[in-house]
């Protein structure tokens, strides 16, 4: 087994135990793992966004290689940019299979405006980008939400009660009982979210039924998610067991032992040192 694979296993084991050590208390192992995780992921995502979105989808549509012409002013600007970086702006245009779309100058300009927030006097330009993002998303999603969350919900709730082949009760398939539960649950659940009237009388009782439906569904969802988390934990343990083998120089055992000794020593030392009374200070 190559040295890099073994080193990778040791790092994975150290970081896993470093994060687990948080269960004891905040300690240098957890701090190291946390700061590495946050720092590396921030850099990683910045790089991913640039190379999967900005370079191919933005620059690739503004200066595609398919329409390259050394004579045009547009590509002369591009050639000027090539001096900055030939990997971002390769000679002859960007070949990502796109045609030229000058409408992409709008997101390009909005991106530049976001960057202008670095200059305090031009800080306000960034609001345009935020306004565009929020406004665009509101308009774009309104139609989808109305279709799926309003009309789709009405269609799904207005179930059929006349199908002769449908059983009255079934846990696994469509049944009259299930359709009734969905009908009552949806209506009472909606009534729970009625804000402009006091929940008293019939409305109060109906909304109480609604909150029971909501809590039962939350309970089921909680159990389902916990099962998923347990499987993730098992996956981590499987890796730790794998790395405890001699092929990886018993990485799991060594790292665990060293961490336990250091944390144990720290616990012993802090037990001897009396805690500082913050309030007295």
């Amino acid at each position, binding site marked *: 087994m190559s040295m890099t694979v073994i080193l990778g296993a040791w790092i994975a084991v150290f970081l896993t135990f470093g994060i687990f050590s948080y269960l004891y208390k905040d300690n240098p192992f957890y701090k190291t793992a946390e700061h590495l995780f946050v720092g590396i992921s921030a850099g990683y995502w910045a790089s991913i966004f640039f190379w999967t979105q900005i370079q191919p989808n933005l620059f690739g549509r503004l200066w595609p290689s398919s329409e390259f012409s050394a004579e045009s002013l547009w590509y002369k600007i591009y050639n000027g940019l090539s001096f900055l970086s030939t990997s971002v702006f390769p000679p002859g245009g960007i070949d990502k299979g796109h045609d030229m779309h000058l409408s992409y100058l709008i997101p390009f300009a909005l991106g530049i405006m976001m960057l202008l927030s670095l200059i305090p006097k031009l800080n306000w330009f960034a609001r345009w980008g*935020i306004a565009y993002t929020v406004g665009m998303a509101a308009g774009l999603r309104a*139609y989808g939400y109305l279709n799926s969350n309003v009309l789709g919900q009405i269609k799904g709730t207005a179930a*059929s009660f006349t199908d002769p082949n449908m059983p009255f009760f079934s846990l696994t398939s469509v049944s009259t009982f299930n359709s009734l539960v969905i009908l009552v649950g949806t209506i009472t659940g*909606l009534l729970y979210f009625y*804000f402009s009237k006091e929940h008293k009388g019939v409305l109060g009782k109906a909304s109480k039924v609604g909150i029971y439906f909501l809590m039962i569904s939350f309970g089921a969802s909680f159990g389902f998610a916990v099962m998923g988390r347990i499987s993730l934990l098992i996956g981590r343990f499987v890796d730790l067991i794998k790395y405890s083998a001699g092929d990886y120089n018993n990485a799991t055992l060594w790292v665990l032992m060293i961490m336990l000794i250091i944390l144990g020593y720290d616990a012993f030392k802090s037990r001897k040192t009396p805690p500082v009374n913050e309030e007295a200070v």
Partner: protein
Amino acid sequence: MKDKQFWIVLSGLIVAFLIFWFAGQPMFNEDRVVMFITIVAISATLLYNIRMAKRGETFYLRPIPGLKAIEEAVGRSTEMGKPVLYVPGIMDMDQVETVAGVIVLGHVARMTARYETSLNVPVSRSIVMKAAREVCRESYMMEGRPDMFNDDMVHYLTDDQFAYAAGVNGIMIREKPAACLYMGKFYAESLILAETGNSIGAIQIAGTASQAQIPFFVTACDYTLIGEEFFAASAYLSQKPELIGGIRGQDMVKVAVISVIILATLLRFIYETWGVGFDAIKLLTVQ
């Protein structure tokens, strides 16, 4: 019929649409007429109620304990001399929950400015960071305390979901905030954050419409704003008539939806049993 101007304009638009319809409805997609009617009806209901609220009509709003607790939480932080931690979720500004979370942040920032309590807002998206900074700056200025605002109170950690959770956890166990507010769109990190907040003894209030995460917040937080309660938070906290009118309008839409559900079920039953009427489900299907 209190708002005559509204009804005159609405009637005019309906007449104009009927003329357009009987003239052969050029450039109109007939398959989506149900969606068109739905959008017009919802928009008209919301506009009517907003106008009524602006004209001075008062609407009752039932109390939501989680919203009342926000001010208590900020007050508790002030008494303890500890910061307030506000987490606006892990998604971008194109998610309605994030937008709602940033709006609620504005109200929380006003409270922290009023009580002179420090506020810490770690974010996971650059645009959210910019929007949250703007909102906080405005809140501190409105409370007459621009000196208390600094850009670093809203700071970026990382885009990665679990790295962000690890970073926020680190902040929690080192700064030990007295109040943790989680308002926005969350995924699997919700329980990690809420459990850590619980372990440090902070008062915790969560608000989200992420169905799969509400159970975790309900379990680990002191108060949870479920779905619509979270979206109504801004109206409750600001008490602005136009926002309260919007809440009233949404309530009327909910009553209309319940009525349509009952009507569609009855129509479907009659159609399938006796063949009378029409297929309501087919009518509601948008191509």
